[in-house]
């Protein structure tokens, strides 16, 4: 997902008897569906895990601008260009909502940025894949944003108030993203033979990386168990992946495109599609920083930060100068 493999305390979920009174009261509030707010007492593990998760989610939104930014200057029409610009601007906004939510936990945005730029913090594996053709803009909106929505809709009910509120805003805006992607895919799939092939090729390349977004099966993960008990993770990775496949398979059929999985088949007994797992070795390799575009993405983010330094410093100096003048005048 936009936040993958989020490590928790690394321990089994405590039973109520093992918790101290403060922890127990906290867990009871979470169980009752109450929102935890910034100044409330919270276990240190909850706070740290949330910073990791929200931070990684924010970084994903920011880095996620790059694969699409790649096509802004080459969009096929002025309208498509304006739409893509609006979408990329939304991603920046989503990143900012999320950094704000993380900041309420006592970490600064610059601190999180530093950890991204040094490679200490991660962003979603999906953004390390290249966007080679215009059809990829369709595939990203349809599949990548589609997968993100699967995860983000339940997160609107997450236990941490500022995170839940950020998710509500994001989900409202995200549905435009998925629909504009599908709109591009419809145009391409119903276009010339060359366009149809381009659309099929985009689906071929983005299908398995999209399935990887949910992360490997975590049924037996202590991290996931704790994060689900704290309601900062709402569903298992397999549940969400299945939901995504079930939703997407008929859409691909509608487009007349073929999902690149010979084992994809409706299973009447289960009431779900059967499908092939992605290559998890590739996933771990990409997470380690060996994706096709990993180095490019980090380079672009570092360059943006370094080249923006004079703007950040200049505006701050100007603000201080103005403030000093105002004080002198009073």
């Amino acid at each position: 997902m936009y936040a993958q493999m989020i490590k928790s305390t690394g321990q089994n979920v405590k039973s109520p008897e093992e918790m101290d009174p403060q922890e127990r009261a906290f867990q009871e509030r979470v169980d009752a569906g109450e929102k935890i707010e910034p100044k409330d007492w919270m276990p240190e593990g909850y706070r740290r895990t949330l910073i990791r998760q929200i931070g990684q989610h924010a970084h994903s939104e920011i880095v996620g601008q790059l694969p699409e930014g790649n096509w802004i200057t080459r969009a096929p029409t002025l309208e498509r260009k304006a739409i893509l610009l609006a979408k990329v601007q939304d991603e920046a906004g989503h990143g900012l909502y999320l950094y704000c939510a993380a900041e309420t936990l006592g970490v600064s945005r610059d601190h999180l940025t530093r950890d991204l730029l040094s490679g200490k913090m991660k962003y979603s594996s999906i953004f390390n894949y290249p966007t080679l053709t215009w059809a990829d803009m369709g595939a990203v909106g349809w599949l990548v944003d589609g997968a993100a929505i699967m995860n983000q809709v339940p997160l609107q009910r997450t236990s941490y108030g500022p995170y839940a509120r950020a998710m509500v805003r994001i989900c409202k805006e995200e549905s435009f993203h998925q629909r504009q992607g599908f709109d591009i895919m419809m145009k391409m799939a119903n276009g010339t033979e060359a366009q149809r092939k381009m659309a099929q090729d985009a689906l071929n390349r983005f299908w398995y990386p999209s399935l990887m977004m949910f992360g490997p099966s975590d049924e037996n993960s202590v991290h996931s168990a704790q994060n689900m008990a704290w309601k900062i993770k709402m569903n298992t990775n397999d549940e969400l992946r299945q939901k995504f496949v079930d939703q997407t398979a008929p859409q691909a059929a509608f487009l007349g495109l073929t999902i690149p999985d010979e084992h994809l088949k409706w299973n009447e007994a289960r009431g779900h599609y059967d499908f092939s797992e992605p290559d998890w070795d590739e996933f771990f390799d990409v997470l380690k920083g060996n994706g096709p575009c990993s180095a490019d993405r980090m380079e672009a983010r570092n360059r943006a930060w370094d080249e923006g330094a004079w703007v950040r410093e200049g505006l701050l100096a100007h603000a201080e100068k103005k403030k000093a003048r105002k004080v002198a005048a009073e």
Partner: protein
Amino acid sequence: MQNEWPLWEVFIRGQHGLSHRHVGSLHAADAEAAIRNARDVYTRRNEGVSIWVVEASAIAASSPDEKGPLYEPSNDKVYRHPTFYDIPDDAGAM
């Protein structure tokens, strides 16, 4: 990185005559820049007709630990609610 722009809390009034409502926060060098950024970050879809920004450090807030003592005095004044009073139906709509 030591020179981080200050944090501003953003309040927006929607179109339907309601009060300004807290929508989130952002970083900006000064108030004017904060309002401009707030427009880009929080009103991309006509969410508001008025923006307030307040430096986060200027906000004083009640502490969650005081939740009990702070609000408790209103608990025993049930007569502040209209439902406290029994008015016979015969009295007509009220």
